[in-house]
């Protein structure tokens, strides 16, 4: 699933490890989320949003058409 986690993390000046520590996951999980290779649960999405001070919309919202194109 494509998302803006990496961009938001860099804007917040955090490393993957720092974000991982705040969200109570491993750095590998953050890396996979940023690459769109792992779909986090809503709880984890919220934890990431709280950590980088962004909303769910900012980080995870994608238009339906764009989402379909990315899947294909």
């Amino acid at each position, binding site marked *: 699933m494509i998302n803006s986690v990496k961009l938001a993390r860099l804007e917040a000046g955090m490393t993957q490890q720092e974000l991982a520590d705040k969200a*109570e996951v491993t750095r590998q*999980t953050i890396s*996979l989320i940023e690459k769109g290779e792992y779909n*986090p649960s809503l*709880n984890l999405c919220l934890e990431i949003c709280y950590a980088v001070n962004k909303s769910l919309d900012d980080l995870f919202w994608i238009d339906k058409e764009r989402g379909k194109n990315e899947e294909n």
Partner: protein
Amino acid sequence: MKKIKDERLKLQNLQNLRIVFMVQTLGILAILGYEFIRFGFDKVISDPLWLVFLITGIVNQYLNLTISVDHENSTKNPKNRLAVSLIILGVIAVVIGYFICNTNSYDIVDALISSGIIFISGLIPSIYVYRLRVKRNDE
């Protein structure tokens, strides 16, 4: 050992457990199959592994009931469905009891005990499913 908090690793752990369960089940089946071929069914049912295999199967079926109930699309009243299940169960128990009663060396007491066991064995899952259906209807 540190407690796993990462949801991805928890999921991975569950998938690993599934593989372990499959290997374990295959191992149990292989041992029981070997005993069956070498020594017959009596040896199989005297092995504690047989009990483990049966209990695992029963627990698995009970856990699967929660999924089956969620998957149902029926809007029928759970009470009616319980009544139908109990009637069918009663008929099966009576028919089996009748055949046992008419078998040589078995009397009415044996038939009653067997029918009673069959009825109770069916009654417990029926009530369990009924309670699950009622709970799902309330949600």
